[in-house]
């Protein structure tokens, strides 16, 4: 079947067989061409409770507006830059936890594992004088192995992930304190590999613009080429105007952020690495067979098993990924405070990691979410922290507000599910 774009043909309805009656079921989702189609589609999605990232974006704008009205330094280049660099540690760990949440499971150990990672790096490179790159690799490998171990107890032995990782939370915190030894804090060389993670800036203004350009051009090309393949194969494709509009929105955001970075010290290395991780993990989840398996397990374990998916292997690997990213996050924390200390990975870190994933739109019930959710969620949490700090509001109030935001998000998630159920979409 071929799609004639000049006509308002039903593009999303299955083609009617030649000999069958041409009557189209009125309940079919017939999407009109052009922007009228998007408006009706948007209305339908709103009614069905399919809000997507909308509540978070609205929330983020509200947060910015409130803090900006309280203190004009909030949207200043320096404060925004600090928010972006500070969010990377939590954000990296959030990417890992999103994999676990997609299975409908939870990993409570990521905070402690991040502490172990910073401790291993510091002890190896500072105390024992091992090459710092080797120390970093060892810490990352340790994170993955620890995660795989949790996954093994969950997937193979059948213990609840909640309990296994709760045990991990305690065990790995103890392990970190043990290897840090009696003096407790090990300072890290600020010019070393780990030290540079959050302090290095590409001071050349071209770097930030180049990244923004690559992101925008990459998005446009992949959307455009993908769409052309769809059109050639004769299946519904987006109109070019839609791709251009999306690209334009992305360009405004990307170049806006680039200008902001360049007003301060340039593009931070940490942000570049975070973007690379987000693009990579999103690709794995949505474009590879492995990612499809993760989503399938979040939907129905029995269906996945019958489809021939190795359930145990996927589960173990997902926990290994969470451990790996916890480890990555630990290195960024160590870099931020230029030390591995006894409080690493404790406090509100674990809660912030999970909250960021959930606030960003990842469902706690499994099977729904994207790694980009980590970016949105962690932006919300870090903005609140920095905004309150600018106002000189103390930690207790900060905890209460972050808790309130998390509750609001979970309520939205639950209501969304209910609306989807009553609209037959969950």
């Amino acid at each position, binding site marked *: 079947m071929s799609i004639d774009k000049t006509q308002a043909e039903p593009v999303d309805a*299955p083609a009617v067989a030649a000999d069958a009656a041409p009557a189209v079921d009125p309940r079919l989702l017939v999407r009109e061409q052009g922007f009228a189609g998007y408006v009706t589609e948007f209305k339908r999605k709103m009614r069905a409770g399919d809000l997507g990232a909308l509540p978070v974006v609205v929330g983020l704008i509200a947060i910015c507006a409130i803090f900006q009205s309280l203190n004009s330094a909030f949207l200043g280049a320096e404060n925004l830059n600090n928010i972006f660099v500070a969010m990377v540690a939590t954000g990296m760990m959030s990417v890992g936890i999103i994999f676990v949440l997609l299975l409908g499971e939870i990993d409570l150990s990521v905070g402690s594992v991040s502490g172990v990672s910073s401790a291993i790096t510091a002890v190896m490179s500072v105390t024992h004088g091992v090459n710092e790159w080797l120390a970093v690799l060892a810490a990352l490998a340790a994170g993955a192995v620890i995660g795989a171990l949790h996954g093994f107890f969950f997937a193979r032995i059948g213990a609840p992930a909640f309990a296994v990782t709760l045990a991990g939370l305690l065990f790995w915190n103890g392990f970190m304190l043990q290897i840090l030894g009696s003096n407790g804090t090990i300072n890290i060389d600020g010019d070393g590999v780990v030290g540079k993670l959050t302090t290095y800036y590409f001071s050349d203004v071209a770097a930030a613009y180049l990244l923004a350009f690559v992101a925008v051009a990459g998005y446009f090309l992949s959307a455009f080429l993908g769409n052309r393949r769809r059109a050639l194969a004769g*299946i519904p494709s987006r109109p070019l105007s839609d791709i251009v509009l999306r690209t334009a929105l992305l360009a405004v955001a990307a170049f806006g952020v680039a200008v902001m970075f360049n007003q301060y010290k340039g593009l931070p290395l940490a942000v570049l690495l975070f973007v690379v991780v987000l693009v990579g993990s999103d690709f794995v989840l949505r*474009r590879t*067979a492995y990612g499809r398996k993760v989503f*399938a397990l979040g939907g*129905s374990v029995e269906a996945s098993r019958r489809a*021939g*998916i190795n359930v145990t292997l996927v589960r173990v690997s997902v926990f290994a990924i969470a451990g790996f990213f916890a480890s990555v996050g630990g290195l960024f924390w160590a870099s931020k405070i230029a030390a591995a200390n006894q409080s690493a990975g404790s406090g509100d870190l674990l809660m912030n990691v999970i909250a960021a994933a959930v606030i960003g739109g990842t469902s706690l019930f499994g099977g729904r979410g994207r790694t980009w959710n980590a970016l949105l969620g962690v932006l919300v949490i870090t903005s609140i922290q920095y905004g309150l700090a600018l106002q000189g509001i103390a930690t207790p109030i900060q905890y209460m507000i972050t808790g309130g935001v998390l509750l609001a998000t979970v309520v939205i998630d639950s209501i969304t599910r209910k609306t989807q159920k009553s609209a037959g979409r969950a």
Partner: protein
Amino acid sequence: MSATPVLALRGVSKRFGAVQALTDVELEVHAGEVVALVGDNGAGKSTLVKTIAGVHPIDDGVIEWEGRPVTVNRPHDAQNLGIATVYQDLALCDNIDVVGNLFLGREIKRRGVLDEVEMERRSRELLQTLSIRIPSVRIPIASLSGGQRQVVAIARSMLGEPKLVILDEPTAALGVEQTAQVLDLVERLRERGLAVILISHNMADVKAVADKVAVLRLGRNNGVFEVKTTSQEEIISAITGATDNAVTRRAARTTAEAQK
């Protein structure tokens, strides 16, 4: 209709410990034929289907596939022969769209990356040849009605190009219109020359689409009937094992009351 049946069971028996689930069961299914498998609860329908699907290997007897004796010990063996089974619980992932579910576990890849375009094209082609109408191939299974889910599950079994499709109570939980959709699809499978085994409790469905009815009772054959020449009462008495049973007594009573 070809002379050699696609699938033939000869004297198949199956024991679970002390329980004799199947005794000397015979069954023949030809290409382009819908055989309904009926029987009361515990008659051995599910066990028989599971032996064919390779879930439970048989103890005695022979399974013949296109005239040749074969061994079916694992679900994989059955799939390789060309037997597709759609179980009562559909085994679809609610959160994944129709295309993703159709190709779950056998995704088409292009340079190591999922080829969504090709999968969507083939999905549309498949649904079109089966005249299946669903709102969109890109909405999650959760948005579909029970009947639509059932036809997607059946369509999914068709991707492996099977020669025999086993449907385990496909209309059990469906409404009137949805049942009709599924029955239409069963007829289309027959038109395409597939052999179909249909397990059902619903005599109206059996009369509507089946060519033959094989009755099981207490793990044994209790007759194979041509649907066209057999009345519903005859089938029911074969299922319950007596001409005097709850169903006939009730029928007699209601007619008697009606005559008063």
